[in-house]
């Protein structure tokens, strides 16, 4: 079984990389891009029976820094 974790900077935390991507898209002529937020996707290959609670604990302790990041867990 697998799980997919999405980690994003929290709303309100400035994302300079996302801003740079937004500027670049504008410079390339793509109009109407009002904001870009860049995050990361982490895929976990898990032993059968691993619970979502266990993955959440992994997020809290390592995969996300909850001072600046939020995360979502998707069990696949």
């Amino acid at each position, binding site marked *: 079984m697998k799980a997919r974790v999405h980690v994003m*900077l929290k709303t309100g*935390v*400035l994302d*300079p*990389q996302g801003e*740079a991507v937004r500027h670049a898209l504008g410079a390339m002529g793509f109009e109407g891009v009002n904001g870009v937020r860049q995050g990361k996707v982490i895929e976990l290959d898990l032993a059968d029976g691993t619970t979502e609670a266990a993955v959440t604990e992994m997020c809290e*302790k*390592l*995969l996300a*820094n909850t*001072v*600046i990041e939020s995360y979502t867990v998707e069990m696949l």
Partner: protein
Amino acid sequence: MRAAVVVFPGSNCDRDLAMAFRAAGADVTMVWHKDTSLPDGIDIVGIPGGFSYGDYLRCGAIAAQSPICQSVAAHAGRGGYVFGVCNGFQVLTETGLLPGALLRNAGLKYICKTVGLKVETSASAFTEGYNAGDVIDIPIAHHDGNYYADDVVLDALVDQDRVAFRYTDNPNGSARDIAGILSENRRVLGMMPHPERAADEGHGGTDGAALFRAVTGALTTA
């Protein structure tokens, strides 16, 4: 006074940090990241700059989970002194020994240059060799030094006189120009600039030497 300097795979300022402590009179032991305990009688632990574990996941995140960091946290919990520089500061925020986090520089670029730092407090073993208000020249070399914490935390740091250093000309977008902060008991200091790179005439500046002399002196007489 006995200091330990932790070496992670990817640390590259460990010897500089050890040299600066030795020049100030400390007896320094290097400690490997897989060690599970600190040597006996250590007064202060130095967490050096560099790119521990290749900055994978987040700067300092993997190092914070290494066996030795559990011992460093226990040392701090017993009231021991800890000094984190650059990547070491990132490790200390990831372990939770210091609040906040270090984000990518606002200008997105790696910055390597000497900057002005204003000493905000002389009320710590690290900064008592300076006067509050002194401006010192110390090099920075980082890509992720943009200090972030929410306003509640920032207000508390200011109210409790825990901002040790501020940039005179903010290079990286840090909240409230913060370059270094102290723990609540003032025994843990984390800072992005590198005082160990301004601790010898050969470095081109010696403004950082007073920090090592102060903390080494304070812990020797303690």
